[in-house]
């Protein structure tokens, strides 16, 4: 039997797109939230943490109702959007924590040398904070990948995908999850024990 890997290719595209989008927004949010005290900071943080506790199914429904012409079949773009929203809190949170972990004298020094915030970000903040952000992104990528693959698979089993494919698929998804965990651990910050 030949295994049709087509759903995994789609999953890859969805996961890639949503990670890239969430990383773009999350980096900016994390920097902005870590930079100074915002009056509306608590509101942004509350909204950000909302998808964490929200069941993905209901989150998807909300997104559908908001953006999608109801009842249409899930498009890849919708799936990527849903993925991005669900992983944004993790990435923005990691980015914020990572930026707050940069010793403040380093961006301060850059500013007193006349650097614009743009240069401060690229030279005096991101190079010192990228490890935890990258680790969070790897995990987020794997999560969207697996979530999408599993959903497609489940839907597929109900229709036309032969049951025999379940084994290799499950092994793949598990391997992706484990591999992402290991990779994140490897990329992530090296910390001395307390």
């Amino acid at each position: 039997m030949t295994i049709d890997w087509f759903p995994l290719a789609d999953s890859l595209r969805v996961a890639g797109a949503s990670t890239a989008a969430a990383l773009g927004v999350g980096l900016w949010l994390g920097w902005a939230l870590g930079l100074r005290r915002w009056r509306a900071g608590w509101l942004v943080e509350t909204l950000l943490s909302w998808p964490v506790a929200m069941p993905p199914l209901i989150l998807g429904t909300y997104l559908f109702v908001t953006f999608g012409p109801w009842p249409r079949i899930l498009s890849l773009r919708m799936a990527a959007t849903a993925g991005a929203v669900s992983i944004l809190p993790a990435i923005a949170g990691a980015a914020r924590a990572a930026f707050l972990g940069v010793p403040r004298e380093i961006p301060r020094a850059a500013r007193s040398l006349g650097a614009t915030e743009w240069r401060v970000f690229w030279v005096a903040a991101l190079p010192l904070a990228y490890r935890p952000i990258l680790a969070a992104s790897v995990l987020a990528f794997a999560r969207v990948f697996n979530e999408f693959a599993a959903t497609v698979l489940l839907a597929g089993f109900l229709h036309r995908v032969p049951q025999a494919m379940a084994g290799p698929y499950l092994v793949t998804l598990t391997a992706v999850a484990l591999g992402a965990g290991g990779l994140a651990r490897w990329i992530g910050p090296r910390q001395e024990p307390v």
Partner: protein
Amino acid sequence: MTHARIGKKIPPALSLEVDFEIAGLTALYGPAGAGKSLMLEAIAGFVDPDSGRIMLDDAILFDAEARVNLAPRRRHCGYVGQRDALFPHITLRRNLLFAARRGPRLERSRRVAELLERFQLTPVAAGRPREIDPAQALRGAVARALLAAPKLLLLDDRGFDEALLRSIREAFGGLVLLVTGDLDLCCAAADRLILLERGRILQSGAPRAVVDRPESVDAARLLGFSNIFEGEIAALDPARKSSRLEFAGFALTGPYIPGRFRGARVSIAVLPADLRVHSGELEGQPNAVPASLVRVSRGARTVRLEFSGGIFADVSFQEFERQKDNRSWQVEFPQQALRAL
């Protein structure tokens, strides 16, 4: 004119209220927690004061009433903080290039090379900050700050010595504000000295003048005048340039105190090193007070003797060896060592 008036409350530890001018190399001296670093941070723009106004070369950096608050990058203040702030992921040379942004590329690398040479950093220029020793990292931070062409250099207490300050002033003609806990360095290198304690300026002026003539009890204590007595002027003799001072339990002959009246209360400060100690059995020591020894603490170069009545005297080890078997003691107050506050 470069002038700063800064009010900032950080309850409960500190309430800063200072008004001072910066000229040449100005040194800020005070105990830990006096607010010295906070003053630098306020001038650099990292901390917003509650009130006041900061001017650098007649440009307003901060004005609480007019709601002016320039961003740190527009203040032209070079800042070298207490902790190492070289960018750890790039080499020292690229750290310096980061600051040298103006002018054509060749000109920038020339200026970087020149400062590396001046601060003896050329051999380690290709190293990352963590590969070079702390003294080199400090010089690197100074060189980087100078490359941004500041008008005012803010140096927080981080092991600056006279040699480094001298090379800074050779390379840089602008103003320097230095925080230090080293009084010798203040006298050797600074043009102006500001004494700070608990967020208030106690005294300021030329270092020599401040160190020799403290104006208040707090300033005297900060400058190491451990002997401070409050007494009364019993007599004043301008002709012989002397005075008679009465304290609780003893009386001394002091220098003439201009501008005071007989009968006025006066505080007298004496440096421990200016006192002389003798055996109590010796007769006829001028201006001496009998005292009993309470405690002896051996320092690095001198021995500090604490006598009853809060009298402290520093003597050399040699002198202490000679006199340590004294059964009773008297302390001599040389007339010119007495300073009226």
